[in-house]
């Protein structure tokens, strides 16, 4: 592939908006001042599972300062939410399915009054048996949580003949793995504020990952015409998947709908405790995985039976189960595959999207299996991964032929010198007598975009007659830096600096949908939509320049706000001149772009299909030191190699990698959300600066032909290999494997004792 030279692609352009953020001037939803707001508060359910017989709001309404109390009956439109399957009422109707369910909404003059009123609502419940374990919920005769029953979906991926391959295996390993609920723990608790503007439009500012979806849901809830609701994304303090579901938006819409005549803004700011209670979690998984390989270590077959707990509602559960099934093989070529993933309703807080959608849970299993085989066959774990790595020309478990941009081997090669160094020098170096060292690897692949469904993005670019450029995108930047990256793509095509591109972002009045900021899809999909729009604009400018410069189109270049003849740079014309001419002739300077990756839906019986147009790859190496007496794990270093196709903004890619590793360290060692017990940040620990290892980020660029300048994505991949690498390192250190996350002090200490290391003197 020829290396093209770019002016702004591949440059670590400084973040748009960073200046406001360091000044404390960035406006998050809780910072927006629209005048004296009314305060919203939901009354949450008192039971995990119960029928609602009656709701009496009279006492609450009688409290001084209460402006309204609303229940399901006050919702004029469709009281059901959900991006994939609609099963979640904004306000509970006939029953509650978890403690997170909102039963009534209070609107009051102050937080204190709202709290008092929420308490004063009297709800008559008829309790039902509550189910927290998927297996209980699937059992014969279990009370149905939803009318359709407790099984939301079974996703199957089948290929080849697993049983024959198992029979011929040199090494056959069957194990069970378990992961728990995880809290996203974005730093900014969910918040929003809204008002009714002069022409009667409900304007809602929210902390969100998908303003256009919010818009659709609020319009549906309130049965309003599209143009009567406007969603504007406020500066958003992280999301990681949780802000893909409606959190405060529907409540604000409902309050405005009924109380807009008061002329007051309404505001809902979740306390951290409410964010913990009421927003989605990562799906816990139980995975039984059996894998086989031949004597040389080549993987021949895999069988998986996995169950994931989606809690009370579907949210992104179907996507999580599907992605888990497709990603079960990891980045390895396995000819015979039989995977079944069930997604099951329970009465836990609902689970939804969280960075990786089931792939991080699956990666724990496939990466552990590789190490188990390697150990049994006395093969080096890195060699085992390299031998089985997907390559161009390989066929995936869904029957997709992988044609380009398969950088897993390159990731393994990049990590190899660090791995050897760690094994040869770091591992045998002396340490304290009760400490044991281990080195572990973790690999992953990750399909960019939604699984086997359409997920288009759009964008619009406009050039004013004076040559100034505005890019309109619905793409929510939640801190990952998409606004900067999209500006770089447009700037590169037009030969401008990214600062010269004015960005209008995530406001449903001015932008068209870019889809969700999820599935690591925005650089690839919205990047392509922006490139499409910008190339259309570039083309009319070139056409005009041909006329003006009397040179063929293919001899022209964009450079520094001008179009120049490549071979004669002194022959040039300013874009502003061209824009004015096009404008005066009545030509169009406003172009809409579109991109939808080419996918083929998965066959429900076999899983056959093309779930994603492209995949990212990564390998992490973890070096850990385990205290055999306390179970404490110190992660000394993580080397993280990522094939991102093309790093449009390398420093931002590094930021994603380092942030992903941190979340991976939390997933591996300390994070678990316990239903009914985890209430505040005192009960849930995420890594601090002091917990973090040195991270060595390595960017691999196996360019994707269909990507914008070759780019794929990195947001979720960054997290996925970390936990398996750490678990493999702990297991190597102790000679005992950990099968359940988190590898907490208790679990590690138990493994240490079991392996006979819990004796201070002997070592």
């Amino acid at each position: 592939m020829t290396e093209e030279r770019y002016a702004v692609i591949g440059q670590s352009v400084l973040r748009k908006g960073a200046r406001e953020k360091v000044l404390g001037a960035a406006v998050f939803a809780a910072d927006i001042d629209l005048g004296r707001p009314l305060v919203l508060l939901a009354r949450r359910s008192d039971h995990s599972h119960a029928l609602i017989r009656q709701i009496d709001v009279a006492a609450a309404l009688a409290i001084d300062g209460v402006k309204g109390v609303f229940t399901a009956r006050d919702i004029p439109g469709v009281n059901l939410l959900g991006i994939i399957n609609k099963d979640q009422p904004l306000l509970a109707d006939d029953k509650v399915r978890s403690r997170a369910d909102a039963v009534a909404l209070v609107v009051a003059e102050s937080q204190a009054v709202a709290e008092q009123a929420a308490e004063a609502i009297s709800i008559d419940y008829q309790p039902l048996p509550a189910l927290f374990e998927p297996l209980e919920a699937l059992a014969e005769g279990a009370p149905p949580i939803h009318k359709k029953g407790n099984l939301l979906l079974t996703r199957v991926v089948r290929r080849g003949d697993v049983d024959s391959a198992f029979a011929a295996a040199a090494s056959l390993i069957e194990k069970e793995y378990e992961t728990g609920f995880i809290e996203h723990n974005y730093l900014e608790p969910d918040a929003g504020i809204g008002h009714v503007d002069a022409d009667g439009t409900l304007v809602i500012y929210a902390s969100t990952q998908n303003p256009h979806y919010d818009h659709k849901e609020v319009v549906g809830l309130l049965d309003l015409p599209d143009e009567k609701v406007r969603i504007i994304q406020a500066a958003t303090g992280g999301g990681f998947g949780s802000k893909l579901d409606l959190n405060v938006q529907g409540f604000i819409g409902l309050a405005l709908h009924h109380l807009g005549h008061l002329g007051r803004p309404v505001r809902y700011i979740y306390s951290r405790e409410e964010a913990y209670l009421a927003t989605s979690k990562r799906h816990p998984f139980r995975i039984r995985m059996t894998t086989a390989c031949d004597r040389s270590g080549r993987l021949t077959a895999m069988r998986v039976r996995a169950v994931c707990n989606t809690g009370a509602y579907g949210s992104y559960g179907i996507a999580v189960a599907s992605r888990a099934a497709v990603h079960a093989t990891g980045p390895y070529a396995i000819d015979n595959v039989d995977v079944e993933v069930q997604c099951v309703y329970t009465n836990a807080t609902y689970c939804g999207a969280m960075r990786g959608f089931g792939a991080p849970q699956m990666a724990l299993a496939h990466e552990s299996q590789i190490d188990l085989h390697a150990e049994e066959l006395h093969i080096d774990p890195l060699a085992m991964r390299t031998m089985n790595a997907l390559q161009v020309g390989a066929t995936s478990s869904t029957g997709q032929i992988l044609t380009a941009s398969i950088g897993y081997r390159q990731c393994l090669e990049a990590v190899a010198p660090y791995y050897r160094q760690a094994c040869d020098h770091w591992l045998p170096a002396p340490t304290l007598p009760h400490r044991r060292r281990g080195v572990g690897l973790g690999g992953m692949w990750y399909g960019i975009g939604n699984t086997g469904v359409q997920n288009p993005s759009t964008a619009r670019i406009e050039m004013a007659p004076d040559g100034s450029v505005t890019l309109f995108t619905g793409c929510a930047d939640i801190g990952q830096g998409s606004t900067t990256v999209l500006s770089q793509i447009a700037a590169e095509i037009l030969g401008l600096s990214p600062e010269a591109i004015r960005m209008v972002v995530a406001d449903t009045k001015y932008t068209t949908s870019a889809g969700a900021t999820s599935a690591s899809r925005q650089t690839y999909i919205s990047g392509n939509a922006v490139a499409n729009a910008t190339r259309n604009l570039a083309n009319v400018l070139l056409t005009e320049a041909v006329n003006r410069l009397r040179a063929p189109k293919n001899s022209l270049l964009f450079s520094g706000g001008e179009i120049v003849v490549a071979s004669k740079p002194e022959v040039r014309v300013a874009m502003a001149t061209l824009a004015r001419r096009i404008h005066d002739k009545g030509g169009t300077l406003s172009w809409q772009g579109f991109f939808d990756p080419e996918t083929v839906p998965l066959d429900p019986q076999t899983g056959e299909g093309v779930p994603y147009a492209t995949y990212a790859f990564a390998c992490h190496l973890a070096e850990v030191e385990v205290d055999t007496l306390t179970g404490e794990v110190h992660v000394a270093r993580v080397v993280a190699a990522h094939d991102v196709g093309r790093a449009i903004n390398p420093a931002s890619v590094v930021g994603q990698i380092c942030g992903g590793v941190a979340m991976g360290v939390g997933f591996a060692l300390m994070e678990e959300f316990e239903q009914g017990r985890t209430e505040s940040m005192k009960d849930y620990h995420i890594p601090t600066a002091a917990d973090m290892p040195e991270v060595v980020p390595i960017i691999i660029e196996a360019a994707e032909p269909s990507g914008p300048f070759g780019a794929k994505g990195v947001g979720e991949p960054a997290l996925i290999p970390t936990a398996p690498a750490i678990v493999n390192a702990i297991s190597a250190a102790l000679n005992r494997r950990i099968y359940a996350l988190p590898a907490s002090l208790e679990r590690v200490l138990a493994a240490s004792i079991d392996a006979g290391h819990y004796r201070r003197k002997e070592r």
Partner: protein
Amino acid sequence: MQTVHIEFMVNGKEVALDVPAGATALQVIREMLGLKGSKEGCGIGECGACTVVVDGKAVNACLLLAAQLDGCRLLTVEGLADPAGLHPLQEKMIEHHAVQCGFCTPGVLMSSYALFAEKANPKREEIVAAVAGNLCRCTGYQQIITAIEAAVPGENR
């Protein structure tokens, strides 16, 4: 509602306020002074998003009673830059890509500012310790620590 009269310095300016007796410093800073740069991430002293500098020390404004500000010198993120430009910490945070969502950023800046006030030449470990109470879910801290290191006064001048 019982109120307390307090007088203190905010970012170099004197203010006098009657604050509700039970109000936290964070509530007063955000709601009464309108300085929204200080964030509430937890309200119970666990996340550091509300960190401000009081008499040279970094404190969690969500745990401090507003009444305790009486007679103090309070510095918030809004007071870091001066008319000549950004504080070096702010500049380096931008330059080293240490800002992602930015919700933790004001707290990180204030903790680092207090560290610099106490120590002219802090080492990397001391920087890590100083911001260990400031949770960040986005960056993994590496670019933050590098940015703060780059802003250490000894290195700069």
